[in-house]
């Protein structure tokens, strides 16, 4: 992701406590953060809450920003904030996922049950979806995506593998196992 020429100076000002500079950071990266949040939480209002919380949290911890380009740093905060917000909102779903109920992905979808990719993404766990968003939307390699999500590399690989298998099953992709 390319930075606008003056953004490194804006970030430096924000790091020194300049709120108006941080306002420019929000204007520059707000849409990116909102899109990541929307892809993970699948809800407009919740994504907006996540976006707002992400920037407020970013401001409070701006001393932890090491790069001139805050893009990855903000994506990491947004990803974790999205997962927390989604878990709070969908606690019952999360319990059901852990218990293995309401998970029709154990068999291939029949032609009548095939879903489009959007609906199939809705059916992933939030952790699987975050992995997919980081790797396939943000184009991060597995190691960086794992660091963003705060999980081991092997866990990230496993989530990506299971997410792809489930997406193929739900969409009736011909290569589904």
């Amino acid at each position, binding site marked *: 992701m390319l930075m606008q020429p003056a953004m490194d100076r804006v970030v430096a000002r924000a790091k020194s406590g300049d*709120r*108006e500079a*941080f*306002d420019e950071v*929000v*204007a520059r990266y*707000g*849409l990116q953060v*909102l*899109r990541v949040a*929307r*892809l993970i939480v699948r809800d*407009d*209002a*919740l*994504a*907006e*809450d996540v*976006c*707002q*919380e992400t*920037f*407020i949290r970013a*401001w*409070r911890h701006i001393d932890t920003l090491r790069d001139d380009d805050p893009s990855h740093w903000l994506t990491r905060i947004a990803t974790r904030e999205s997962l927390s917000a989604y*878990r*709070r*909102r969908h*606690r*019952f779903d999360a319990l059901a996922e852990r218990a293995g109920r309401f998970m029709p992905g154990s068999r291939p979808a029949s032609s009548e049950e095939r879903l489009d*990719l*959007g609906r199939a*993404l809705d059916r992933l766990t939030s952790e699987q979806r975050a992995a*997919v*968003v980081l790797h*396939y*939307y943000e184009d991060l390699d597995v190691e960086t995506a794992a660091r963003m999500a705060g999980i081991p590399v092997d866990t990230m690989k496993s989530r990506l*593998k299971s997410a*792809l298998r489930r*997406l*193929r099953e739900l969409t009736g*992709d011909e*290569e589904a196992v």
Partner: protein
Amino acid sequence: MTEPFEHKLREHLRGEASRVTRLPDPVADGVRAGIGGRRFPGPRALAPAAIALVFFVLLGVGLSGKLGGNTLAGKTPVGAGAPSPSFPATASPSALPSPPGSHPPPPPARCDQAKSAASSLAGHLVSVRAAGQSGFDRVVFEFTSAGLPEYQLTPQSSATFTQDASGRQVNMQGNAGMRVLFPHATEQGTYTGPTDLKPGLPLVKELGNIGDFENVLSWGIGLNGSNCYRVSELQSPPRLVLDFATP
């Protein structure tokens, strides 16, 4: 792992993302308020701000009794209005979190008991949060999409609360308090957050569950100073929002 499927997935994600075309103004406004920065109200925000300003000026010259009982989002907290503390005439009553769409003017502040309209709707609490804003501390009770249940707000002159069912005394931080009662609600099964929060704010010092028994849910708020407040009801998701003006 099939290349075509991964390609299709990438394309789909980009397509989904591209449907989000701009950062809504209330989100950026909420961030500004959340970090305590200056507010830069745009044309859309100026109208409610101006209405709020006129309202508070009228309150100042003694017309509050005639203008009390303002509403938000179609619901009216009942009970007489009381003298108003000094709240900033904020353009956005939803700084944290932010609902989509335009915002009505903020409701008046009050220092007395308030009740919502009677309702038998069963509420399920999802989260409780507190945040410092520019000129006030905000407490938000968020419920599941089923809706905002009936509530009663009772300011009190101490931060000691009587726990429902057990009758035990609970001392919270602060020298004043607010009892928030939901007579047809519970947090069992839906609320996973802490039942005692110390947000470290200027005015809101502590929040704690003081009862969840037979579908009667109570929370106490320990306050340091004034227990005058402004109450708002927001939708999508349903939220009860209490703002306490900071000195």
